[in-house]
């Protein structure tokens, strides 16, 4: 792999950009791999990357039914934060956030990580108490957050209306080192690094069945024929239920649509990410100037990547109270992804009833921020059979009643 650098740009400019090599190979599948990952979203690719980088396991294929990064990874609003309430969540999200800080150097790929800061607005007294509690919990967890006053909010976000008629701003939970990154670049950067390690990323190839013998996974059926493997990782977000059915077990997951939209581009006006969980809306400004807006998930089971328009309407209506200046903006485009929601709103990184078959799912509305930490933990689990970061995120926790309840801290899409 030829490294990207300022020198490389100059060199290629001198020969009219004819010399750039392809970022990853597109091979046909081999008969057998040590490990197969289903799903080339951020989590699947990061899992493959750390299998190679941390555990020396490089005979790996990542199988993707569409194009890599075309699922939720390429559809999300890219908010990165780690201000969760429960210890297991804070540990894995903070690991992920810290890996984002060095990801561009690590992958030699500019993922445009922008630690611009994230505010979660407190707009009810209940929220004030909730976020003060989270700030205290974060202190113990080594996650740097602070509860700030309405005046401090106004200083950080001059365009905000503090005394909205229904939901005045009473303060906020501030994580200065949260922010955003370029979603596609995260997928592309991992894909390039995996391909460089000799791994096969096989796109336009759908897994249609899971083969097993004596309770052990043997391989997968695909639209490009059967492929054998010693270990299988299922990392397919909204399609987790479908893959679990192929592998013969059920998951505590329902798939629903989550939507987002962007406005026409405008001059820079807000350089932090603002989330307003009571009214179910959040907003940031992209480098191109678009206001990037998201809200709550739709309510019913759905695999169509299309949501209901009234949810967009609700989100925008709520945000206009808090940001009156956006009321005249035109919406540029809107889209949806299918998110995998668990009962306690926390993810699953786990062994399954099928031997040597592992599952990583349930990231729901908030897994972009977790990609490097999740891949790190999933790779460790697949390589060694256990991972401290993943220990609490087993699928058995629902039977045992050991929930990791983040529905208070993360009750809204993000």
């Amino acid at each position, binding site marked *: 792999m030829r490294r990207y650098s300022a020198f490389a740009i100059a060199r290629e400019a001198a020969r009219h950009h004819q010399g750039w090599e392809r970022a990853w190979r597109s091979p046909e599948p081999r008969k057998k791999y040590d490990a197969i990952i289903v799903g080339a979203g951020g989590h699947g690719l990061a899992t493959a990357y750390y299998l190679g980088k941390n555990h020396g396991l490089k005979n790996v294929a990542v199988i993707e039914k569409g194009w890599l990064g075309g699922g939720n990874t390429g559809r999300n609003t890219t908010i990165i934060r780690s201000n969760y309430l429960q210890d297991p969540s804070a540990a894995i999200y903070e690991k992920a956030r810290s890996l984002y800080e060095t990801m561009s150097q690590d992958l030699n790929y500019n993922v445009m990580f922008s630690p611009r800061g994230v505010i979660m607005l407190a707009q009810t007294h209940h929220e004030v108490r909730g976020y003060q509690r989270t700030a205290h919990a974060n202190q113990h967890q080594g996650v740097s957050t602070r509860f700030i006053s309405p005046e401090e909010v106004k200083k950080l976000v001059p365009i905000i209306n503090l005394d909205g008629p229904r939901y005045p701003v009473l303060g906020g939970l501030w994580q200065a080192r949260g922010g955003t990154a370029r979603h596609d670049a995260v997928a592309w950067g991992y894909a390039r690094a995996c391909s460089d390690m000799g791994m096969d990323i096989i796109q336009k190839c759908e897994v249609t069945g899971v083969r097993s013998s004596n309770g052990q996974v043997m391989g997968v059926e695909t639209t490009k024929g059967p492929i054998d493997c010693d270990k299988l990782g299922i990392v397919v977000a909204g399609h987790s239920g479908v893959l679990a059915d192929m592998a013969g077990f059920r998951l505590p997951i329902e798939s629903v649509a989550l939507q987002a939209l962007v406005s026409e581009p405008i001059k820079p006006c807000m350089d932090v990410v603002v989330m307003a969980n009571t009214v179910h809306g959040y907003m940031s400004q992209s480098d191109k100037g678009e206001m990037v807006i998201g809200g709550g998930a739709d309510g019913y089971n759905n695999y169509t990547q299309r949501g209901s328009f*009234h949810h967009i309407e609700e989100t925008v209506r709520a945000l206009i109270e808090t940001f009156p200046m956006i009321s005249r903006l035109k919406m540029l485009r809107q889209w949806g992804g299918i998110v995998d929601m668990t009962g306690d709103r926390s993810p699953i990184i786990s062994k399954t009833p099928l031997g040597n078959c592992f599952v990583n799912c349930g990231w729901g509305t908030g897994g972009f921020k977790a990609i490097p930490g999740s891949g790190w933990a999933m790779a460790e689990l697949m390589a060694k059979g256990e991972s401290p970061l993943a220990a609490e995120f087993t699928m058995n926790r629902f039977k045992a009643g050991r929930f990791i309840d983040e529905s208070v801290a993360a009750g809204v899409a993000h």
Partner: protein
Amino acid sequence: MLLLTCPYCGVEADETELSPGGEAHLKRFGPGASDEDFEAYLFLRDNPKGVHLERWRHANGCGKWFLAARCTSTLEVFGTYPAQTTRPPEDVLEAIRAKRPGWEMPA
């Protein structure tokens, strides 16, 4: 926008009048049940890509719970029926089988 006909009041309601309630025909288990049964009742879901039998409430209408048969990959509605049943009525089953030959009611 999704349109469902409430089997009680007969209103063809659009989605903003309704609230979704997840998978229908769950087998209920209470105190004294095994951990497996209790977990399955509370958390495990079929979550199919295809025909889904599900609960809805006519929240901003007559207020009653009813059930619907709907496809999660096309958003097509096969029919709605009252909630006091353990399986869909014959006409709804027929409507599903006519469009999805080979479909079987989940166990």
